[in-house]
């Protein structure tokens, strides 16, 4: 097993997965940077994890000297994300204004909300899609309105033919940037998460300042739960946790922790606390958050850093190219951190043999599900 010291670049990236750093965290970044022997992969890794602007921001603040070529590459990424963000913001405002004019209720989700409600500058929060939640009954109309705005928006035949939680992405090229919008009907597929909220289920909403117009997003507790659930769902043997999602979660609890109803989190969304207890090993939570959330931190799970060798969003085919044995081993014996994340064990509760068995059952169900899908596809 490799030690943490074998992965200084991942450790450094993970430490930068947050908006703000206090003096101790900034020192930790400087120390981690001291252990980095090769900087070449930094821009592409930071970009793959969606945190290039945050990484550059923190490395600059910590006075970390970067090789000239790396510094230039990081600066270029920062500028490009800033430019992309300006274009995306204009389009998002147009969409929100159009929906408001059509009296169609919409909530901004994930990056589309957090870039404006949480991050000090939207350019610090890169994103691939704009995710919007509407009432299931409004989904087709929402997609049609995107078409009216110039998006290429594939329309389903009728409401009944829509089974996925979101419609096909609608795309628009504006000023050279392809902007993709996903209209969500629910937050998760039915059965994929303990809850699957629709827009009308959400009572507490938070205003999102969007230049001269105002939009809305989920309340803090629901946002936190949604982000954690999304992280759990998206992290598997083929994908390490995307560090931008870690940055979203950690920054939300650090910046707005005083406004979060922790008693409600404990009673309704306990998996949030379990997730935070594991994210703490990537980028540490402050004492204030640990006290507010009443989280107990255990020992660092083994195999945390090798997991990051698997970049987010690499396909199973790419993973298989690295050798099926490695992929198979990772699938059958995943990292303890990952098993804890999926089973909601936090970091302090013991990991027993039956937890592993529970995971293998999950694996068998997933495998059967994939096989079933392939059979169905062949039959069609």
């Amino acid at each position, binding site marked *: 097993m490799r030690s943490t010291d074998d992965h200084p670049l991942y450790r450094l990236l993970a430490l930068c997965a947050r908006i703000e750093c206090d003096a101790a965290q900034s020192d930790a970044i400087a120390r981690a940077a001291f252990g980095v022997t090769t900087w070449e992969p930094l821009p592409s890794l930071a970009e793959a994890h969606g945190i290039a602007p945050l990484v550059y921001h923190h490395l600059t603040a910590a006075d970390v000297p970067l090789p000239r070529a790396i510094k230039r590459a990081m600066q270029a990424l920062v500028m*490009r994300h800033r430019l*992309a963000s300006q274009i995306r913001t204009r389009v998002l405002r147009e969409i929100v204004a159009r929906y408001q004019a059509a009296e169609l209720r919409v909530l901004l989700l994930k990056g589309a909300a957090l870039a404006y409600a949480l991050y000090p500058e939207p350019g610090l929060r890169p994103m691939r899609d704009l995710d919007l939640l509407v009432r299931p009954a409004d989904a087709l109309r929402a997609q049609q309105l995107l078409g009216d705005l110039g998006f290429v928006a594939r329309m389903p035949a009728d409401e009944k033919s829509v089974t996925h939680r979101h419609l096909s992405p609608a795309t628009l090229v504006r*000023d*050279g940037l*392809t902007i993709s919008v996903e209209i969500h009907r629910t937050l998760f597929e039915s059965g994929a998460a303990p809850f699957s909220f629709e827009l009308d289920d959400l009572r507490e909403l938070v205003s999102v300042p969007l230049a001269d117009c105002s939009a809305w997003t989920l309340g803090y507790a629901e946002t936190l739960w949604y982000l954690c659930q999304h992280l759990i769902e998206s992290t598997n043997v083929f994908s390490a946790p995307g560090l931008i999602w870690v940055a979203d979660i950690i920054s939300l609890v650090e910046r707005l922790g005083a406004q979060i109803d922790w008693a409600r989190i404990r009673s309704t969304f306990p998996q949030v606390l379990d997730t935070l207890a594991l994210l703490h090993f990537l980028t540490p939570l402050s004492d204030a958050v640990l006290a507010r959330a009443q989280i107990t931190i255990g020992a660092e799970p083994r195999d945390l850093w090798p997991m990051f060798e698997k970049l987010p969003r690499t396909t199973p085919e790419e993973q298989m190219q690295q050798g099926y044995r490695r992929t198979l081993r990772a699938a059958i014996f995943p990292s303890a951190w990952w098993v804890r994340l999926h089973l909601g064990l936090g970091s302090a509760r013991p990991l027993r043999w039956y937890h592993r068995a529970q995971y293998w059952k999950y694996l068998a169900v997933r495998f059967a599900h994939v096989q079933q899908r392939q059979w169905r596809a062949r039959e069609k």
Partner: protein
Amino acid sequence: MTANKPRRVPDYRLEKLDDELLLLHPAQAQVLYCNETASLIWQLCDGQRTGAEISALLAEQYPDAADVIARDVTSTLAQFHAHGAIEYVA
């Protein structure tokens, strides 16, 4: 190449960063670092002037460097074109 008229491809932007100028596109990872001459050439790529006319304009401004300007303009336009930042119009 210089007989055709180079025109800036829309969506590219010239941004200042410290002492350098960057030519960047919101959807492309690669950027072009420009010196002062390259940024001048970029701004003169309006689809109205040929490469030779751009060289002549610059040579008028910098007569001492007239002999290298034509070569610089040709190589800079080739770089812009290879990057996709300009297109040639008749």
